[in-house]
Each structure stands twice: as structure tokens, then as C-alpha cells.
């Protein structure tokens, strides 16, 4: 049997020792040794859907941009930054001159800066891009980042940081957590209600232990993070989003703010706005696979023996109990209900285009009762 080989020469997360003490299997990811699982991916996935999972996402890049960077940042992405209110998160995309996606990220306006969270695997390229645009980026590698996700997350976190339950989805504020300053947003990558918690690296173990002390919180690894985000229909950078894919193709037109649709002025605006107007030639779709066999990234969508599309994320959806996937297909094959065939090692599996998310989201949005 082919067992994946571990690599070496990885950076260690601030919680490395805790992960190992909790029985994590560590794998290389984004240059770090990271926990892929503790008890097992399915158990961790279901625990997060039913209780609360604690994720260490300290590999992600936390960046601070000085006030006054709004216009320079808007020149790199299609979001409305100047109109972003304090304490509000905006999902956006760094684009290249062809409109290709260089990274997806969160931007939050704070009182003293713009706070960005970017993907770990490309954070150094992002920093170089931002600095090349004349932005004085402060890379906060002295901070750690935790995510607490699931229906119990608000109750658990509020016990340590009173007031967090008043935050709404995509809102953030400063809190005190175990006597230490923490920047907390109501956001995540699982489709569940939950929070992302930025604290000093040297106090993150105390925070993690305090959260794990609640009987409803268990540590969750990268494996379940991937299956959770797949069920939630959320794309993964480097797989579902790459420099050869633009925001319209990716189904992320919502990340192109209204004012920017009118004004343009972001990289690749000509191509992106043309696709927005006329529709892109290919689209990211969700696929429900017949039977039980998963399809994986790289598998081809075939029509009359010819590859017409490609799976970019695929696996087993534990809460759905069946295989699901994301793929890029021609617009003519992108309508919900379209039947497709996928080549898996020479066998053709049948699949249906379905709306995403595959599993309903549980966000606590603005307007929800407090």
C-alpha cells in the first residue's frame, strides 16, 4: 500500500507541543508541521457540526496595513475598501493583470489599521505584492490564530470573552481573553457559526487549553477543516482558486463590490468585468457523485470521450454521507441538474451539478436576535 511519506524541514506552530500532546498526526502544510487529525477526520468533522471544534490556523498570514492604504489596496483587489466600516470583515481576492486569483483573503478595518488574514502557502508572495505597491505591511508573525467553530462556539467563547456573542457574522472587535488582548471575528471556514481568534503566540497555548477544557470543545485538524469547507461550498486557494481562474469563473462575483463594478481600476478589470457582463466560458460548480466512490482533484469531466472540465476539490462529505466535489466545467454544463461523467482511473462515474453549499450554513448574521 502506498503510504504518504512525511517531509522534514518544516516550521513549528506555536502550539506544536500541544498538538503532539493531544495525539495529532502532523503533516507538512504551507511550510509548517500541522495537525491533520487527532481522533479521525469523520469524528472531528461531525463534532464540529454538532458541538465545537478548535482549529489552529496560525500558519495563515496576519498583516497590518497603515491607515491611508485603502486606495493602494484597492488597486490590487476588486473590493470596496474605502467604504469598509470599522469592525467589518470583507472577503476579497488579490488579482493579477489577467484577473487571475493570486490569493483570497479577509480585510477588516480597525481603528488604527487595516487587518488582513491571508493564506499561509502564499503569504510571503502576498507581502511582497503589497510592499511592491508601496504599502507599508507589518507582518505579525508574533501572533497566533485559532478558529472555534460549531453551534457551541458562541457559548464557550463568551465564557472567556464576554460580549463575543453580540458580534454578528463578518464582524470583529477587540476583546480581553484570559487577561490578554485578543482580536476576535465572527467568521470561519466551516459553514458553521464560529469565531477566529488572534492572540499573541506566547499566550495561545493558555487560550487553547482554556477552550479545550470545555467538554463541548475538541481539537480538529486540517483534514476535517478541508471536508467541512468542501461541504460548505467554500473554495480552497491553490486548488479551486489559482492564477488561471478569475473571480467570475470561480463564482465569487459577490467579492467584486458594487462601486468597483462601475469604476473598475483593479487588476484584470477589463477581463473580469466582461465576464461579469456576458458570463464566463467556464464555471465552478458543485457535483454530487452517484454511488460511494470519491472523485479527487485532477479527475477529468468527460463528454463523448473528451475532457471538458476538471475536478479541483473532491472527497467524502461526512455530514452528507456521500462523495461531493467542486469542478470547473463549460458554461453549457454548469446548470443545476446537469448530468456529467467523471473519469476516475479509467472508469466513468456519474454525477449531477448541484447548488452549493452542499450542507446548509449556520451563520449568525446581522439582524439576528441577540
Amino acid at each position, binding site marked *: *500500500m*502506498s*503510504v*504518504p511519506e512525511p517531509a522534514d524541514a518544516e516550521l513549528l506552530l506555536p502550539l506544536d507541543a500541544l498538538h503532539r500532546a493531544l495525539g495529532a498526526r502532523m503533516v507538512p502544510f504551507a511550510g509548517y508541521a500541522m495537525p*491533520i*487529525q487527532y481522533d*479521525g*477526520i*469523520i469524528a472531528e*468533522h461531525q463534532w464540529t457540526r454538532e458541538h465545537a471544534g478548535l482549529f489552529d490556523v496560525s500558519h495563515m498570514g496576519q498583516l497590518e496595513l497603515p491607515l491611508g492604504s485603502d486606495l493602494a489596496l484597492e488597486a490590487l483587489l476588486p473590493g470596496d475598501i474605502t467604504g469598509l466600516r470599522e469592525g467589518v470583515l470583507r472577503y476579497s481576492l488579490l488579482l493579477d493583470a489577467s484577473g487571475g486569483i493570486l490569493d483570497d483573503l479577509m480585510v477588516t478595518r480597525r481603528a488604527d489599521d487595516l487587518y488582513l488574514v491571508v493564506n499561509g502557502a502564499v503569504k510571503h508572495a502576498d507581502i511582497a505584492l503589497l510592499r511592491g505597491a508601496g504599502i507599508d505591511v507589518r507582518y505579525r508573525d508574533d501572533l497566533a490564530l485559532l478558529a472555534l467553530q460549531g453551534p457551541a462556539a458562541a457559548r464557550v467563547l463568551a465564557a472567556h470573552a464576554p460580549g463575543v456573542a453580540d458580534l454578528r457574522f463578518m464582524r470583529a472587535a477587540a476583546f480581553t481573553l484570559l487577561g490578554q488582548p485578543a482580536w476576535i471575528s465572527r467568521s470561519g471556514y466551516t459553514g458553521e457559526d464560529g469565531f477566529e481568534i488572534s492572540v499573541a503566540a506566547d499566550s495561545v497555548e493558555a487560550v487553547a487549553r482554556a477552550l479545550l477544557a470545555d467538554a463541548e470543545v475538541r481539537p480538529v485538524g486540517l*483534514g476535517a477543516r*478541508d*471536508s467541512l469547507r468542501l461541504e460548505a461550498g467554500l473554495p480552497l486557494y491553490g486548488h479551486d482558486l489559482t492564477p488561471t481562474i478569475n473571480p467570475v469563473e470561480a463564482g465569487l462575483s459577490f467579492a467584486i463590490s458594487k462601486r468597483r463594478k462601475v469604476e473598475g481600476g483593479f487588476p484584470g478589470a477589463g477581463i473580469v468585468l466582461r465576464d461579469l457582463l456576458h458570463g464566463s466560458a467556464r464555471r465552478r460548480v458543485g457535483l454530487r457523485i452517484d454511488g*460511494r*466512490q*470519491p472523485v*479527487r482533484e485532477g479527475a477529468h469531466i468527460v463528454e463523448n470521450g473528451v475532457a471538458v472540465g476538471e475536478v479541483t476539490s473532491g*472527497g*467524502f462529505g*461526512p455530514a452528507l454521507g456521500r*462523495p461531493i466535489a467542486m469542478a470547473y466545467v463549460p458554461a453549457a454544463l454548469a446548470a443545476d441538474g446537469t448530468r456529467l461523467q467523471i473519469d476516475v*482511473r479509467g472508469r466513468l462515474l456519474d454525477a449531477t451539478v448541484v447548488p452549493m453549499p452542499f450542507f446548509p450554513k449556520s451563520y449568525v448574521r446581522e439582524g439576528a436576535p441577540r
Partner: protein
Amino acid sequence: MTRYFTNEHEWVDVDGTAATVGVTDYAQGQLGDVVFVELPPVGKALAKGKEAAVVESVKAASDVYTPVSGTVTAANAALEAEPALVNTAADTGGWFFKLTLSDPTELDGLMDEAAYQAFVATL
């Protein structure tokens, strides 16, 4: 009946020229939750060391190689309904396929249980 092991973490039980192949408990632990197993059809001739089956965990697909050459006589239908048998019973009910040995001398190159456990201890 004698059980042999490979350094690719398959086991093979041999009784005369009849053999049953599965993956080891160590292997299932490395795979994580198994959600699908693709098995070879009965009658297929398999060559030692070549891909014989595919085991899919939540995360990834892994090839399973046959430890010995032979012709498939049975595939474990229970794995279709319950792929997690590979996790819960790797050494027993989670077997993959049975075959008739075409060259019993191939067994000479395989490990016994003690040698395999010593090998796993080095990983």
C-alpha cells in the same frame, strides 16, 4: 495457515495455494477513515507488487499492491456496504481479495509477523 507481510503494509494469509490479502492495522491507522474500496474483479490475473486495489479515505486515494502473483477468486463484498471494516477489522473482516497463487516461491521474500512489527517500529 501462515500470515506474511510486505513493507508496503499488506498482509497475506496462505493455505496451500489459496491466499487472502488485506492491509495491516498500521496501514489503516495511516489511512484514516476509509470511505470506499475499489476491488479487483474475480478472474483477474495480478502480478506481484502491482496495483490490485484502491482504498479511499476521506482525504485521499491509496493503491494497494498484491504481495504475491495469482488469479483473483473472490473480492470482499462486505467492504462495499461497510468500507470502515478496513479501519475496524483490518486484520480480519476487512480483507480485500482472495487469489490462487501462481508462484508460491514469491512468499520467500515476504516478512513474518515479528519481522513486520520490527519494521513498523522503525517508521
